[in-house]
């Protein structure tokens, strides 16, 4: 029987239905407290709320860059899930983050990621983090993701 997860439209629908829980099953993402807010084909959006325990500089009280790394890495992974024709797990090969301007203390960080090219074994993604719009970014990211060979079964907690 054909796996419904191998149908992209059905999978995107499944991802949308489970959007609220998507990051809750990933402990470190849960610790950061970010959420996926919108999913389209090849493109996902999310929000990282400002949290005291994520501050990286006690003087400026700005969230640590590593939190943005986690956010953009996860959103890129989700963008792959909303792109690949067949259901596959992906693993980050590399991720480059450029910091354009510091985030402002006390404000939520919005982010989006798109998967813009896929080969047989690699998916290429880019991502943006900002307070208001992509016209004024805090950071941009570019990453390559290895597409794993199919595994049988889908268990709770698997990352898409």
């Amino acid at each position, binding site marked *: 029987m054909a796996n419904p997860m191998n149908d992209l439209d059905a999978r995107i629908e499944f991802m949308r239905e489970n959007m609220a829980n998507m990051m809750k*099953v*990933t*402990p*470190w*993402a*849960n*610790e*950061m407290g970010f959420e996926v807010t919108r999913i389209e084909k090849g493109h996902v959006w999310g929000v990282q709320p400002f949290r*005291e*325990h*994520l*501050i*990286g*500089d*006690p*003087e400026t009280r700005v*969230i*640590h*860059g*590593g*939190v943005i*790394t*986690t*956010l953009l*890495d*996860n959103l890129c992974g989700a963008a792959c899930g909303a792109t690949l024709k067949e259901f596959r797990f992906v*693993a*980050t*090969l*590399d*991720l*480059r*983050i*450029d*910091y354009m301007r*510091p985030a402002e203390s006390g404000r939520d960080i919005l982010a989006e990621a798109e998967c813009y090219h896929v080969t047989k074994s690699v998916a290429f993604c880019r991502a943006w983090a900002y307070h208001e719009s992509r016209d004024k970014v805090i950071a941009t990211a570019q990453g390559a993701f290895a597409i794993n060979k199919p595994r049988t079964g889908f*268990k*709770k*907690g*698997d*990352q898409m």
Partner: protein
Amino acid sequence: MSETLSRGEQLEGFLAQVPIVKTLGMHCDIKGDDMVGVLPFQNKLIGNFTIKALHGGAMGTFLEMTAMAQLFLVADVERPPRTINITVDYLRQGRAQDLYARATVIKLGRRMASVRAEAWQSERDKPVAALLGHFLLGDGGGPRQTG
């Protein structure tokens, strides 16, 4: 900062005040101008439960913090360096074990520095992740005056 504190003590004092360092649960084992970052394993650092793998974001944050700390040890700056960019290579799956990292300042200029960092678990020559980062130094910069 106090003249009587060693650079290592200054770094430890700073790290103790950084919330994300506490959230990660990392610490730095400082030996003079050299150090090793240590990230003891905790369940919250996991990114994928089914394969019990460390989250790439947690490893990336740990590597960036280690690079920044090593740079603070050798550069003549009052404030922690600011990150311009980082590239993290994920080389192997991070297992549910402690993670260690060492960073090397490969170029220390007056305004900017390039730092390489590598993280490993049970075997030093099998790195799990590697980072190359560029950092902006505050006023002054350059190598630290000793003595």
